[in-house]
C-alpha cells in the first residue's frame, strides 16, 4: 500500500503489481457477491424467479452477448477494442440469409455466418495492424460499413424461412432446461479462460496491454497477436449471429443494433481494465450473469427498460470508479 503513498505521481504502466490490480482482483469476488445477492433478492421479489424454465429463458438475455464478450475481453486487455461486433452480426446474418435463399442447408448457413464474421474480423485486424490505425476509429467506421452493406441488401425487407434444423442453435435444448446456447457459452468460457490464463498466448495478450513497446522488444509478435484477437472477435460475432438468427428465425438489417455497447459493458463490468493490461474471464462470466439476472429480475417485476439501463449504468460506473476510490482511500 505504501507504493501509492510514496508515488510521486508518475503513472506506472505495469499495473500487474500495482495496488489497483489487487483491488480489481477482489472486485471479482465483490461482483460474485452482487450476483448472489441479486439472485436471492430476485427469488424473494418475484414468485416466478426460481422456476427452472424461467431461468433457462433468462439465459438468452446474455448468452449471445457473452460469446462476443469473451473475445472482446482479450482484445480490450491487449489495449484494442472492436465496436463493430453488432454490425458484424448484421452482415453475417444477412450473408446467412442469402445462402439460405439460394437453397443451401443448415451446415452451409452456419459456415457462412462464421466465415463472414471471420472476414470482418480480418478486415478490422488488417486496418489496425497493417495501417496502424487506432482500433476505435477503424471499428466505428466498419460499424457503419458492415451494417450499411446489410441495409443495402435488405432495405426494410427481411430474410425468413430458415430450415427447421437451423433452429437448434437459438431455440434448442441440450438437455432438460439447459439450452444449446448456454452450453456453447459455458464451453467458450472454459476455452477462453484457458487461453487467457494458462497459455503463452494469454501472457502475450497481457504483456501487450501493459506495454506494447516492451512486449515487442521482448520478442512478442504484437501485430500477429492483435490480428488473431480481431479474427477471434469476428469469429465470435459470427457465432453470435448464428445463434441470434436461429433464435429470431429471420434476418433484418436492424438485427442486434446497439449490442456492441452491451458487450463492452459486460467486459468492463467483469473487471477488465478499459485501458488494457488486466482482467479475467471469470470476471466476464460473472458480469454476464449479473447483467442477465438484473435485466430478467427487473423484467419480472415489469420495471421499465430505462430503469434497468440506469441500474446497469450505475453498476458500470461503480466498477470503474471503485478501484480508483479504493486506492485513493488506502493511499490517504
Amino acid at each position: 500500500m505504501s507504493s501509492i503513498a510514496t508515488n510521486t505521481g508518475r503513472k506506472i504502466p505495469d499495473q500487474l503489481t500495482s495496488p489497483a490490480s489487487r483491488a480489481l482482483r477482489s472486485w471479482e469476488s465483490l461482483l460474485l457477491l452482487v450476483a448472489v445477492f441479486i439472485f436471492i433478492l430476485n427469488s424473494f421479489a418475484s414468485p416466478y424467479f426460481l422456476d427452472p424454465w424461467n431461468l433457462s429463458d433468462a439465459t438468452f438475455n446474455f448468452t449471445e452477448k457473452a460469446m462476443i464478450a469473451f473475445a472482446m475481453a482479450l482484445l480490450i486487455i491487449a489495449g484494442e477494442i472492436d465496436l463493430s461486433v453488432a454490425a458484424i452480426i448484421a452482415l453475417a446474418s444477412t450473408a446467412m440469409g442469402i445462402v439460405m435463399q439460394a437453397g443451401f442447408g443448415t451446415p452451409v448457413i452456419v459456415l457462412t455466418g462464421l466465415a463472414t464474421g471471420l472476414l470482418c474480423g480480418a478486415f478490422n485486424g488488417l486496418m489496425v495492424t497493417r495501417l496502424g490505425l487506432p482500433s476505435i476509429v477503424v471499428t466505428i467506421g466498419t460499424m457503419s460499413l458492415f451494417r450499411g452493406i446489410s441495409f443495402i441488401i435488405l432495405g426494410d425487407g427481411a430474410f425468413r424461412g430458415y430450415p427447421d434444423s437451423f433452429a437448434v442453435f437459438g431455440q434448442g435444448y441440450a438437455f432438460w432446461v439447459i439450452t444449446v446456447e448456454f452450453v456453447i457459452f459455458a464451453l467458450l468460457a472454459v476455452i477462453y479462460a484457458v487461453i487467457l490464463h494458462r497459455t503463452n498466448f494469454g501472457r502475450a495478450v497481457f504483456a501487450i496491454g501493459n506495454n506494447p513497446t516492451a512486449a515487442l522488444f521482448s520478442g512478442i509478435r504484437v501485430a500477429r497477436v492483435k490480428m488473431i484477437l480481431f479474427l477471434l472477435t469476428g469469429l465470435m460475432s459470427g457465432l453470435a449471429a448464428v445463434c441470434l438468427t436461429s433464435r429470431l428465425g429471420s434476418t433484418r438489417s436492424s438485427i442486434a443494433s446497439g449490442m456492441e455497447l452491451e458487450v463492452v459493458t459486460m467486459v468492463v463490468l467483469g473487471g477488465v481494465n478499459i485501458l488494457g493490461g488486466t482482467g479475467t474471464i471469470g470476471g466476464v462470466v460473472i458480469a454476464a450473469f449479473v447483467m442477465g439476472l438484473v435485466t430478467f429480475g427487473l423484467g419480472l417485476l415489469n420495471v421499465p427498460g430505462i430503469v434497468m439501463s440506469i441500474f446497469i449504468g450505475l453498476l458500470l460506473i461503480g466498477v470503474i470508479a471503485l478501484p480508483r476510490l479504493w486506492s485513493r482511500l488506502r493511499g490517504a
Partner: protein
Amino acid sequence: MNRILQLTMTAAMATGLMAQGAAAEDMRIAVVAKALGIGFFEAAAKGAEEAAEELGEVEIIYTGPTDTTAEGQIEVINSLIAQRVDAIAISANDTDALVPTLKKAMQRGITVVSWDSGVAEDGRMAHLNPSSNELIGNMIIKLAADELPDGGQVGLLSATTTSTNQNIWIEEMMKVMGDYPGIEVVGTVYGDDLADKSYREAQGLMQSHPDLDAIIAPTSVGIVAAAQAVVDAGKVGEVNVTGLGLPSEMAGAIESGASKSFAIWNPIDLGYSATMMAYHLAKGEVEAAPGAEIPIGRMGTVTLDETNSAPMADPFVYDESNIDEFKSIF
C-alpha cells in the same frame, strides 16, 4: 466494506422497491409497446386501462423495451411468459423475429394478439388493424365531401407513385366516388413524402386548378405541406386540406383553418379494443378463427378475416373540437 454495502444497497433498492403484490385471481393482460416513452403507445395504454376498468378483475401490465428493437421485445416477452400472464397484446417491432418467442408463449397457454403493427400469422392468434383500406379510402373522400355539400373539385396529393399504402387507399377511394355525387377529382400529384416537394406540388395543384375546393393528402408529410401551401397562397377558406395526418403536426393547420378536419387512428381506441380482444380470447368465449366475431366493448364487434386479422373501425376524425386533447399525445 463500506463500498460493498453501498453497492448491494443500490441493488436492493432497484429490485426491492419494485416488488408489488398482484391479486392472483385477476386476469393479467400485458400490453406491449414498440418502445416505452412514445406518446402513441402511452395513449394506447390509457385505452387498455379503460377497458380493464370496464371489464373488471383485469390487471393491465403495460410494458415494452427501451428501443424499438425486436431483441428488446423478446426479452420483455420472455419475462411476461415467466410471469405466466394470461394474455399478451403486442405492437411488434418485427413481423418475423418475434414469432419463435410468441409461439413459445402460446405453447405455454398464453393468448397472443397483435395490434397496430402485426406479427406474422404463426406468431399470434389474431391481429387488430387500426382500420382497413376500404374504410380509409372512404374516409378521406368523405372528409372532403362533407365540407362541399354542393359538390366541387378536389385534388390528390399522394406520397410516391409506388407507395403501396397510398395507392391502395386512393384506389379504394375511387371505388366509392359514386356515393359522393358532384365531387370531381381533377388531378393527382406526388410529393414523394418530402416536405418541400409536397409543398411545391400542392402549389402547382392550386395554380393549375384555380377553382380547386379541397386537397386530399393521404400522407402525414403531404397533408402538413399542403396546409402550409394553402396558408401561404392566402387561400384559407377557399381550399380545404384533409386526409391522413398526425394531430401534433396538424394542430396549426386546424387552428389556421387551412384544414377543417383530418383522420388517423385513435390510439386510445386501439389500446382499448386490443385489450377487449385479448380478454375475450383469453376467456375462451370466442375462438380465434376466420369468421369469428369478437366483441370489443364500446367499439362494437370485429370479424376476423382469413388471416385472423380484423379492422377496428373507421379512422378517427380530428377537428377543432378535439385537436387540443390529442395534439400532445401523438
